Structure formats: structure tokens, C-alpha cells
């Protein structure tokens, strides 16, 4: 009896999970169906004919690879910049005492919650005046507005979790403060740095609004606005092609998911929801 209930519960649980995951399954299935099969009534759940032609079209006949390269450059640059600045900043905020430290921490949290639409108009004006609008560089600058507070906030809680005794011991042994930071803090903080970097990368990879406003040339457009443009500008919408683009766009996330999931869940706990 208990056995039967367990099976029923599992079936119920898994049908909910599969229902939630269904859109993603459907995205995969659509991307490998030939165009004519999409218009079949009733729709085929698994493709009758498998084809990778849409992936080839995407890579050969569209700007997808340019967008992909732009997104890789943009997200990596943002992540490197933000994590480097935030690691030093978080160390300072957690382990040093000076005036204004508390208000700074408050400011970080405040900006972490700030809506992008408030900053976007002045940022747009600023970047136009600097003459850097329409470049990947301008997006890196814009992305720091949300990525830096976020990374600082995450790293701050990771940093707070490192016991102070180790650092004090090193200082007693004659290490300099920066020496202790390099030899004691950094190795301990590494898992935290990795998950912060992953989250920052994902945030930048997925960002849409700044890319929409600041960049309107195909040579520096990232994936989000680039792929969306393929939908808007196409005369008749090729859904298989768009689904193939969506799959390709999610590939980096799938890789992160498959190999680095523990880092993701760790970051999740630290990100402001630590009850």
C-alpha cells in the first residue's frame, strides 16, 4: 500500500516536472523538424524526419555567429571586469574598518535593486556624448550597472563566510595584508568567485534592454537583440530556425548546468535570500 502510494506520488511529481520542462522540450523538437512537418495537424510529438538543416542555415546564412561572438566577448569582458573589481571591493567591505563603509554597503544593496529603465536614459546620453555608442565596449560599461552591485553583494556574503582566524594567524606570522589576501583569502574564496562569475556571465548573456537601446548595428549586436531581430525582420517566420537559434543560444547555459551545478546552487543561497 505504501509502495503504491510512493509510485503514485512519483508519477504525479514527474508529470508536473515534465509539464514545466515541456516548452524546452518543444523547442528542441521543433528545431530538428523539417519546416513542412510543423504544419501537420495533429502535431507530431517526436519528429518523423530528423534534420539539422536549420542549424546549418543558422550558421551559414545568418548573422548568428557574429552575434554569438559578440555575446561571448561582451559577457566575458563584463565578467572579468566586474569580478576583479568586486573581489577587491568585497574584501574591503568585509574585512576593513573605515568611515562610510556601512553606507557603501547600503548603496550596493540599493543599486542591486534599482530598475534599469531609470539609468538607461542618462547612460544613453553619456555614451553618445563619449562617442562610444553602438560598440560592444558601451555595453560592457552599461552592464556593470547591474553586474557590479550583484557581484559585490554575492562576494560579500561569501567573504563573510571565511573565518577571520586564518587571516589573523597569517598576519601574526608576519604576512602583509595583501600577502594574506593572496595566500589565505583568495584560495578560500575561489568557489565563491567561480559561482559569482557564472552568475555574472549568465546575467550578461541574457541581458536585453541595454542591448536594445545602445546598439543598433549588426556588427556589434549581441545574441539577445540579434536573434529577436531575426523574428521581427523576417517576412514569414521560420519557427524551426528560431528554435534552433534558441537552442544554440542556450548551449553555454546547458554546459554550465551540466558541469557546474553545485556552484550555481551555492550562489543562489548567498544571493540575498539567505533567510
Amino acid at each position, binding site marked *: 500500500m505504501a509502495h503504491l502510494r510512493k509510485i503514485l506520488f512519483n508519477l504525479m511529481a514527474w508529470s508536473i516536472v515534465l509539464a514545466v520542462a515541456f516548452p524546452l522540450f*518543444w523547442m528542441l523538437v521543433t528545431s530538428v523538424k523539417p519546416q513542412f512537418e510543423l504544419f501537420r495537424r495533429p502535431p507530431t510529438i517526436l519528429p518523423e524526419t530528423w534534420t539539422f538543416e536549420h542549424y546549418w542555415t543558422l550558421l551559414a546564412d545568418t548573422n548568428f555567429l557574429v552575434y554569438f561572438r559578440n555575446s561571448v566577448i561582451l559577457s566575458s569582458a563584463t565578467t572579468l571586469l566586474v569580478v576583479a573589481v568586486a573581489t577587491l571591493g568585497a574584501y574591503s567591505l568585509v574585512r576593513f574598518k573605515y568611515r562610510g563603509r556601512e553606507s557603501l554597503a547600503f548603496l550596493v544593496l*540599493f543599486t542591486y535593486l534599482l530598475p534599469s529603465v531609470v539609468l538607461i536614459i542618462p547612460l544613453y546620453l553619456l555614451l553618445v556624448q563619449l562617442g562610444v555608442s553602438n560598440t560592444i565596449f558601451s555595453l560592457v560599461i552599461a552592464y556593470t550597472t547591474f553586474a557590479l552591485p550583484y557581484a559585490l553583494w554575492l562576494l560579500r556574503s561569501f567573504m563573510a563566510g571565511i573565518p577571520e582566524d586564518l587571516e589573523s594567524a597569517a598576519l601574526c606570522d608576519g604576512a602583509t595584508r595583501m600577502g594574506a589576501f593572496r595566500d589565505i583569502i583568495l584560495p578560500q574564496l575561489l568557489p565563491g568567485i567561480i559561482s559569482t562569475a557564472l552568475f555574472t556571465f549568465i546575467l550578461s548573456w541574457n541581458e536585453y534592454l541595454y542591448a536594445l537601446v545602445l546598439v543598433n548595428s549588426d556588427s556589434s549586436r549581441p545574441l539577445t537583440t540579434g536573434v529577436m531581430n531575426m523574428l521581427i525582420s523576417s517576412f514569414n517566420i521560420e519557427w524551426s530556425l528560431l528554435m534552433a537559434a534558441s537552442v544554440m543560444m542556450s548551449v553555454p547555459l546547458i554546459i554550465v548546468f551540466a558541469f557546474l551545478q553545485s556552484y550555481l546552487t551555492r550562489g543562489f543561497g548567498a544571493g540575498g535570500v539567505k533567510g
Partner: protein
Amino acid sequence: MSSSNTLLERRYAALGLMLIAPTVLVFCAVIIYPLVSAIYLSFFNIFTPTLEGEWVGLSNYTELLQTGQFWSALGNTLIWTIGTLSLQIIFGIAMALVLHQNIWFRSLARSLILFPYFISTVVAVLVWKWLFNDLYGIMNHLLISAGIIDFPMDFLGTMPNAMVSVILVGAWKYFPFVVIAVLARLQSIPDALYEAAKIDGAGPIARFFDVTLPQLREVLVVIILLRAIWDFKEFDLIFLLTGGGPINDTQTLPLLVYQEAFALNDMGRASAYAVVMMAIMLVFMIVYIRRTRSEGGS
């Protein structure tokens, strides 16, 4: 001895300031300056293509409070936020309770649930637009074959369908956040509490209300505040799904700011909208910040 101590302390403080300097610099350039500038701009009339404008004082504010569009956008924002947030919370808690049980392939189930949260909004929107497609979408097919509707439905082009669809897609995209946060808390509830409740004769439902829910209270308040702030300022999902339409029926405040600045070309008016929107959010932000700080900073 004490003087050398203070010397060291002073040197440490200087080092601390040096380490925070890059952060402060970046903050001032890309956050503080634009923030102040947004408030300043809201007193001007600025034509976007030429970026020329003139001082108009408070008239942007007085006008926006009188126009119906602001109030309807505010109403839409509230409907969207409350609708999607409650679905996220209810569905998130339920899913967390399920995933807390020992089901088959639990970590795979967890990854699948988490996935919508991590994919790009662009991907989510493309997939849902395809699911919602009026001629070949699977949603219409399923609903018709289940006998719920007789004719294909227009999910995004009519009201109230558009608002309901946006709310549902928002819930699908963001409920995993609630799942993970609640799951983490569930795992730290001591088993002894459940044992004690069992001995007292409490059934599963009573145990949920008497043990689980009170234990979750703290974390739920934080989640609700955070998600309320994030949903309130959501732009991508609504903009990409409906663009604010049909007419302006799903236009929320962030979309209104965007429209005013980059389609109607009045950056001053747009800044005024943005500032008012921020003022409304400030209430939630302050509550959240005070909560986090009273817990000791982490």
C-alpha cells in the same frame, strides 16, 4: 604600543579605502551620475533625435499625473506584479515541497525545474510565442482536442488573454527562484519538530500549517519582497511578448518609460516616469534593505 597599533589601524584603513576605490569610481560613473542625471533630466523637455531641450520645471510631473496613460500603466504594473508574484509563490512552495521528498532522479528533476529561470528571456519568449501560435501552436491544439475551446484562441492579441498569458509565462519563468530558496530553507528545518508534531497526532496538512509554514515565514518575506521588486521593474518579458499591447492593455511602467524615451522621443517626460516609478519601488526597497541589515548584513 598603543600608538603603533593605531598607526597600523590607520594604514589598514588606507589600504581598505584603496581596495574599494575602483568600486566607488565605477559606481559614481555608471550609477550615481546617471541616477542624479535622471532626476535632473525630468525637469526638461528633451527631443531624443537632437538631444536638445529646455527647462520646463515640474510640468512633466504635473502632466503625467493628469494623463490616463500613467495611471493605466500603474494599474497594469500592479495587476502583473500581484498576479505573477502570487502564482510564483504558491507554485514555488508546492514544487519545493514535492522536490523535498525523495522522488526518483531528484537532481535531474531539480535541474529541469531550474532551467526556465536561467534561460534568456528572449529564448523563453520565442518558445512561448511558438507555443501560443494561433494556427500551428501546440497550446491551441491541446485545448481544442481536450474540448476546452472550439476555435483557436488568440493568446497575446486580445484582452484579457494577453494579460493572463503574460502573467502565466512570468510565473513559469520566475517560480524556480522561489523553489530553490524555499528548498534550501526546508532542508534546514529540524526533523525533531515533525516528529513531535506526529506524536501529537498532527496529520500531513496540519504539520504543513503548524510546522513548515511558520518555519518558512522569514525566508518567504524576503523572497516576496525581492520578487515583488524584480517583477515590478520587469521589462524584457512583457515588452517581447506583447510590446504592451493590445493597444496599451499590458503596458507596464517600465514599458511606458521606454516608449516615451525611444518611440515618442521625449526623454524628459520619460525620466519623470522613471523617477516616479522608482519612488514607488523605494517603499519595497527600503523595507527589504532594512530587513537584510537587521539580520546582520548577510
